């Protein structure tokens, strides 16, 4: 008797999708009520490819090993007071933005992939989404554990969940993920699985984490790269999703293209915060945002869309505008936070001479012409005791929720304003990209909880800035304002002044 043994692939199929069955006591459409309304047509779920073929036993084994290593680093970092060995305490402000703005989104991704992992009809897809769900929980939890140690010494970290639901600039990432979470399961997979994880997440995790390493933050770089090792599975899921949808039915192409356009632009706007972290908040720099954009979007994204071209999918709309903006966005964002530093839970500063020269070298087309003069003027005003604060609340873009501070394509000296009418109201946007997104789903985007509107409507603790800061749980005079003169600076200087021998 000859027995035909299973290959790896068939074995894995038995272990996952072989578990699924067509329900008969309840209709399949009731068991999976959400995977039809978006108009995506799936003829054959079994055509789904599982490139990683990870069973739970291997998952537990690999992940446990990663976690043992990671927590050993975290423990030794804390025991050795590793926070005293970072390049400069200014660096911690990037960590603050990370914990308040990014970690809660890891959590949102966790719950969102649980939704996709339950409600997509294909078993292979569900298993991959569930593994990503549990990975994303890992990322949130390891980030909280890593940054917990910094919270013991530095300000602005202690109220991250409370702030995330309230603070004006944190509504940028929050609304991004609320948008994805309130979309259907296929759009969620394209938004987070493809556009965010595949196309854009490298920009956050590779150069920024490399920057953390360079700035002596061994704990953040360890969770960052350890998280990234899950990310490669997530990227594989993201690219499989888009290929699968495009292969299943030609009618899916226009829907997927619309989502790719939307989520590319949403992601580009969101990552402007990371651009600022890289160009302005890392005391020691690895590469500029523009360089990272060229490697990870222009080159890697170019290869990807060349590949996806065989399905008829095109480069995202406004990709050219985004690439043009890569030479401006970090500077324009830093300018916003500098002038609203009294309302932000991290510190700002004007770059020193060496930093200015680095920016000039990295941005030869734009920095000296448009931004250096402004920075030099603000530095001069600081010296004269006239530090510039913007006392007016900014108008926000209805879509990305960033203050309207971006400039016209081709004209970096004119602020870009767009608007649309919907049900007798006028809505305002920072760009054509954001306006298009609103115009495609006005009912959704007109609901946005816009922080400045909410302040004016009296929903944020009171009419004055201190009232609002109090409502944010933002410790006025401690968490906010310039780095120079902050308690963070004070503790840093104490560590570095007192450990030298003093002759009496």
């Amino acid at each position, binding site marked *: 008797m000859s027995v035909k043994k299973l290959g*790896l692939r068939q074995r894995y199929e038995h272990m996952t999708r072989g578990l699924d069955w067509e329900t008969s006591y309840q209709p399949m459409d009731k068991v999976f009520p959400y995977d039809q309304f978006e108009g995506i047509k799936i003829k054959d779920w079994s055509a789904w490819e599982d*490139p*990683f*073929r*990870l069973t739970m036993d*291997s998952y537990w084994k*690999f992940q446990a*090993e*990663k976690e043992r290593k990671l927590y050993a680093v975290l423990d030794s970092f804390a025991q050795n007071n590793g926070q005293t060995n970072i390049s400069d305490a200014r660096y911690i402000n990037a960590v603050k933005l990370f914990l308040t703005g990014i970690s809660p989104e890891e959590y949102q991704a966790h719950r969102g992939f649980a939704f996709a992992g339950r409600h997509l009809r294909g078993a292979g897809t569900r298993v991959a989404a569930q593994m990503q769900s549990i990975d994303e929980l890992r990322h949130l939890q390891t980030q909280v554990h890593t940054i917990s140690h910094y919270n013991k010494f530095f300000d602005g970290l202690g109220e991250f969940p409370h702030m995330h639901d309230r603070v004006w600039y944190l509504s940028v990432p929050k609304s991004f993920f609320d948008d994805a979470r309130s979309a259907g399961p296929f759009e969620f997979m394209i938004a987070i699985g493809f556009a965010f994880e595949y196309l854009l997440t*490298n920009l956050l*995790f*590779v*150069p920024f*984490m*490399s*920057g953390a*390493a*360079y700035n002596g933050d061994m704990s953040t*770089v360890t969770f960052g*790269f350890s998280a*990234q*090792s*899950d*990310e*490669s*599975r997530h*990227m*594989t899921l993201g*690219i499989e999703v888009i290929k699968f949808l495009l292969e299943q039915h030609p009618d899916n192409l226009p829907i997927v293209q619309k989502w790719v356009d939307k989520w590319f632009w949403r992601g580009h706007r969101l990552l402007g915060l990371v651009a600022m972290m890289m160009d302005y908040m890392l005391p020691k720099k*690895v*590469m500029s945002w523009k360089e990272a954009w060229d490697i990870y979007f222009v*080159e*890697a994204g*170019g*290869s*990807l869309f*060349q*590949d996806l071209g*065989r399905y008829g999918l095109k480069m995202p709309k406004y990709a050219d505008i985004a690439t043009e903006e890569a030479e401006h966005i970090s500077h324009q964002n830093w300018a916003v936070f500098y002038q609203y530093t009294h309302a932000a839970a991290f510190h700002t500063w004007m770059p020193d001479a060496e930093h200015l020269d680095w920016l000039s070298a990295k941005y030869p087309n734009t920095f000296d012409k448009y931004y250096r003069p402004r920075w030099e003027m603000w530095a001069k005003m600081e010296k004269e005791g006239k530090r510039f604060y913007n006392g007016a609340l900014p108008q926000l873009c209805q879509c990305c929720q960033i203050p309207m501070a971006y400039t016209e394509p081709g004209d970096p000296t004119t602020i870009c304003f767009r608007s649309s009418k919907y049900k007798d109201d006028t809505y305002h946007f920072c760009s054509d990209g954001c306006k298009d997104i609103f115009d495609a789903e006005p009912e959704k985007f007109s609901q946005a909880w816009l922080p400045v509107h909410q302040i004016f409507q009296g929903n944020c603790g009171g009419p004055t800035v201190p009232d609002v800061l109090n409502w944010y749980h933002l410790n006025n005079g401690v968490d906010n304002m310039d780095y120079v003169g902050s308690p963070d600076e004070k503790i840093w200087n104490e560590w570095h002044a007192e450990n030298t021998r003093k002759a009496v």
Partner: protein
Amino acid sequence: MAQTASITLMQSDDARPIIEAIIADNPGVRILNMPGVVKLDCDDSITVKRASVEERLGRSWEPQEIQLVLVSMAGNLDEDDDHFTLSWRH
């Protein structure tokens, strides 16, 4: 335009044999060193061969283990018992 297939690995003792195997097995590989990580790029396709890693590691090694040190990648993944390959070929 040639499409870039890419693997980014941690700069660590565990990753070193894999990095060396990639450099040996992929002629023309371009290496970008960054703090903590190394990015390895090739035109069209880049591969990690199980046998090459095992030779350097001195023990058996499954391509799935690359996940412990993998930071990023670009290309379509093809993984089986003997190799871990990213490519833009079809």
